[in-house]
C-alpha cells in the first residue's frame, strides 16, 4: 500500500515534468514564430497626412475659414476621432483647438529631439495658408497630428 502511494507520486511527478517540458518547448516555438511573422506595417505617417488634409478641407472647404469654426464639435463632425489613439492640435491666430491625449505631443517633441523611444507615435506638423471668411485676410493654420496605434503598427 505504501509502495503504491510512492509509485503514484512518482508517476505524477514524471507526468508533470513531461507536461512542463512540452509547455516550455511549445512556448519557445510560439515565441519564435510570433516574433518572426508578426511584423507590422507602419501606415501612420500616411494616415496622419490624410487626416491633416481631410481636417483642413472640412474646416475650410474652399480655402476660406470662419474664425468661429475652431470647436471640438466641428472637428468631431469632420471625422470619427478615437481620443485615446489620436492627438490633434490646431492653432490659428489666437485660437487653439486641442483634442485627444496631450502626452502624445510630448512624445512627438521627444522624438524630434531624437530621444530613443521604443514605442513612439507618428507625428505630422503642417501649415496651411487660408483666407478668413469675414475679412478675406490671409491667415496661417498650424496643425499637429499625433497617432498612437502602436499595437497595430509597430
Amino acid at each position, binding site marked *: 500500500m505504501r509502495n503504491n502511494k510512492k509509485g503514484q507520486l512518482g508517476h505524477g511527478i514524471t507526468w508533470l515534468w513531461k507536461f512542463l517540458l512540452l509547455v516550455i518547448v511549445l512556448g519557445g516555438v510560439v515565441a519564435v*514564430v510570433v516574433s518572426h*511573422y*508578426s511584423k507590422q506595417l507602419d*501606415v501612420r505617417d500616411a*494616415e496622419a497626412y*490624410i487626416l491633416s488634409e481631410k481636417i483642413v478641407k472640412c474646416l475650410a472647404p474652399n480655402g476660406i475659414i470662419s474664425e468661429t469654426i475652431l470647436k471640438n464639435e466641428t472637428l468631431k463632425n469632420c*471625422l*470619427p476621432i478615437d481620443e485615446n489613439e489620436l492627438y490633434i492640435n490646431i492653432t490659428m491666430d489666437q485660437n487653439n483647438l486641442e483634442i485627444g491625449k496631450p502626452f502624445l505631443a510630448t512624445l512627438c517633441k521627444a522624438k524630434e529631439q531624437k530621444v530613443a523611444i521604443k514605442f513612439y507615435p507618428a507625428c505630422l506638423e503642417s501649415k496651411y495658408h487660408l483666407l478668413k471668411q469675414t475679412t478675406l485676410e490671409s491667415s496661417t493654420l498650424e496643425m499637429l497630428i499625433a497617432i498612437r496605434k502602436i499595437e497595430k503598427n509597430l
Partner: protein
Amino acid sequence: MLKNKRGFKLGWEFLFNLVFVVMIIIIMVIWIASQANGTAMRKQILAKEVCLLIAESKANTTIMLEHNKNIKIESQGNAIVVKEGDFDKGYIYPCYVQNNTHISRKDNITIIEIK
C-alpha cells in the same frame, strides 16, 4: 489476468499520450503554416489599404475592390475587418469609418460607397 490488466492500462496510457502529443503537433503545424504563408500579412495590408482609401475619399465616392472569393471586408464600428474564410476572427484595424460609408459585396468584389 492481472498482468494483462496492467499491460492494457499501460497501452491505453501510451495511446493517450501519443494522441495528445500528435494532436498538439498537428495544431502547431497548422498554426505555423498559417503564419508562414503570408495570410496574416495579406489581411493586415488589405485592412490598412482599405482604411487609408476610406479616410482619403470624398463624399459620393464608390470604391470597388476585386479579391479572392474567401476574403471578406467588413466594418465594425469605426474599424475595418478583413477575414479569410467564415471561421476567421479577422484582422481589425481601427479606422475612420463613418455612418455615411456602406460596404457591400458582390461575388469577389467588395463595393465601398461613401455617401
